[in-house]
């Protein structure tokens, strides 16, 4: 078929040697940090270039440096490392058949962790998957997350939802959807309601660059723009939507952040593996929303180092070592080096922390398993599936439940 259509290709496929030298990265500290009351038009540089704080010598530089104290940095490092150790343990447990499904956030831990740390507890989170870091920052116990993945007697969702599709209303973490993008307009609706109610809370949502092709992404931006809703909308551009490269969703050379401008929304494109840059951009956007100045779209430029899920085999579509060549590195390693450069951290402390967290994760797993395993139970009661279909269990479900239990 002769065609003039442009069919996007991934830059590298299995067998290729990755070379990302074509990705033009601005120097850290190069971009200005404008006041938050700004028109979308004035964010062209911020949405086409990239906000970066950590430079090649691991120093924090430029106007976007959030000037975080050492304790905050240690917290951030701890949360990110816990996220990774937790993910690795759960991945191993899936491989051993102890859970059926898992999704790791490897390589993109700074997104959820730094963003959540830049928010207030009252801010409502409308996540996509791979944002378990939000729950870690909000203080959800690993045991509770593990019990959800195990679908055991302590599963807070009573065996109803897919592993990792968490829901923790108590910490303002909305139910994850397996069908993509639905959270974007919902976050805008929540933010509009917050304005009606007169609170200063903002809504924050995340979508993958792949699912930004869903209509819900565009609905969310349209409504956020029209009503100037206090919302922070994030596109996590981790390069891969299962097997399709980011250019399948966005075309070539078109930053996702820049889409905001057409909607009249400021766009920020951020080095998603730079903890400080992610923190700073999120603070800017949250402050803007709280001031009533309106929404912001942030693109977090990162890399999905792990497979899409435990059901995915990236060997079919990308070089398995591609992450090693990723020019923005590893967010944990970069923050660690920055803290060491500041004299606030050491390799020894890091190794100690890693050991502590590994032990903590292992102990949590043992505790979670004591409440039941996926294969042998105890599971949530079968009767649980008839509850919460409606507010009250209707007669036909009472009948079905009775028949089933007989």
């Amino acid at each position: 078929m002769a065609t003039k259509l442009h069919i996007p290709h991934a830059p590298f496929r299995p067998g290729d040697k990755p070379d990302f030298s074509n990705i033009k990265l601005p120097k850290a500290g190069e971009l200005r940090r404008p006041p938050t009351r700004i028109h979308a038009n004035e964010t062209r540089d911020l949405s086409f270039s990239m906000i970066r704080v950590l430079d090649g010598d691991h120093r924090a530089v430029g106007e976007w440096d959030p000037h975080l104290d050492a304790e905050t940095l240690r917290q951030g490092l701890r949360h990110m490392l816990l996220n990774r150790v937790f993910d690795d343990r759960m991945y191993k447990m899936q491989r051993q058949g102890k859970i059926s499904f898992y999704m790791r956030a490897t390589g993109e831990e700074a997104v959820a962790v730094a963003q959540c740390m830049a928010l207030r507890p009252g801010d409502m989170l409308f996540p996509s998957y791979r944002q378990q870091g939000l729950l870690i920052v909000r203080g959800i116990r690993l045991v509770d997350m593990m019990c959800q993945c195990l679908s055991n007697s302590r599963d807070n969702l009573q065996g109803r939802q897919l592993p990792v599709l968490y829901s923790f209303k108590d910490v303002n973490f909305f139910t994850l959807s397996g069908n993509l993008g639905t959270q974007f307009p919902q976050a805008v609706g929540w933010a509009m309601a917050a304005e009606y109610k007169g609170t200063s809370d903002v809504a924050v949502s995340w979508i993958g660059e792949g699912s930004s092709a869903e209509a819900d992404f565009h609905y969310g931006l349209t409504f956020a723009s029209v009503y100037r809703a206090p919302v922070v909308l994030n596109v996590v551009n981790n390069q891969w939507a299962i097997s399709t490269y980011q250019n399948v969703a966005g075309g070539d050379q078109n930053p996702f952040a820049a889409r905001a401008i057409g909607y009249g929304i400021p766009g920020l494109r951020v080095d998603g593996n730079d903890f400080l840059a992610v923190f700073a951009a999120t603070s800017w956007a949250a402050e803007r929303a709280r001031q009533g100045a309106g929404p912001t779209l942030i693109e977090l430029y990162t890399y999905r180092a792990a497979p899409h899920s435990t059901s995915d085999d990236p060997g079919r579509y990308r070089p398995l070592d591609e992450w090693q060549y990723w020019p923005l590195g590893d967010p944990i390693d970069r923050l660690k080096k920055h803290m060491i450069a500041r004299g606030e951290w050491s390799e020894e402390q890091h190794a100690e922390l890693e050991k502590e967290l590994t032990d903590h994760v292992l102990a949590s797993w043992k505790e979670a398993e004591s409440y039941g395993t996926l294969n042998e139970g105890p599971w949530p009661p079968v009767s649980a599936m008839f509850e919460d279909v409606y507010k009250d269990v209707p007669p036909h479900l009472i009948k079905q439940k009775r028949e089933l239990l007989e």
Partner: protein
Amino acid sequence: MTLGEAVREALAEEMRRDSRVFICGEDIAEAGTVFKVLTGLVDEFGKERVLDTPISEAGFTGIAVGAAMTGMRPVVDIMFGDFSTLVMDQMVNQAAKVRYMSGGKCKVPMVMRATLGASRRSAAQHSQSLHAWFAHIPGLKVVLPSTPYDAKGLMKTAIRDDNPVVFFEDKMMYKLKGPVPAEDYTIPFGVADIKRVGTDITIIATSSMVQVALDAAKMLEEFDISAEVIDPRTVWPLDEKTLIESAKKTSRVIVVDEGYERYGVTAEIASVIAEGAFFSLEAPVKRIGAMHVPIPFSPPLEDATIPTERQVFGAAKALCG
């Protein structure tokens, strides 16, 4: 040959035969779909004809409707049937009605492939069987193969049909094996297949439930109950004649379908039987479908929501008792 391979072979043969046939959907090229059903097609037909699309079901279904109106024969791949809720406007208000609304001047010869079926531990949003939604709509045809042979023959008919066709594959049946002849063949729509001949009771079953019905029939055999198992293969058009004749012969009927029982395929077929064979029936028609709850993740919970051979067996025994 497996059911998945049969679908792939049908698509490959039709793509070789007719250059207007192309496939579009998510993760279909290098990945060959998440179920690996289309593995290798991109190598033979290239990325233009095995088109990886943005994650935008309504978007790529819309482009398929547009392309089909020019005479192309798109095959749209909806990864999980649950995502078909996103394409309802394009399928229901566009694809199904364009011929009608254009005074017969435009046609939409497209196929929408989607999966159905629970028991994969995929929970509420990846396990539903929503084929009844499409069967409700004038202008659409709805196909539910239960064997590799049927899948291949019906897929070829679907691609060659000048109407929009919705083709549901049970994701748990992709590895099901069965004989498939080497030569080209098609299976007409609206012709049911008697999967097992019997005299005492008719079990009408679709897609994933055909195997369940056959297993139940085997269990019934031990109690000297001879069950006839019929697969309509297309729920629209529906082979009412074959279903009614069997009902008249056996005088007892069970209808099993994995969709939600209420307002579903089982209700439609039960009413066809009631209207066509009422005076031959010894018992009310029994419907068995998925429970009226979202499909839970937990294996023991999920297994309780969908019809099983034991349940069909029990219902049949009660009807024949």
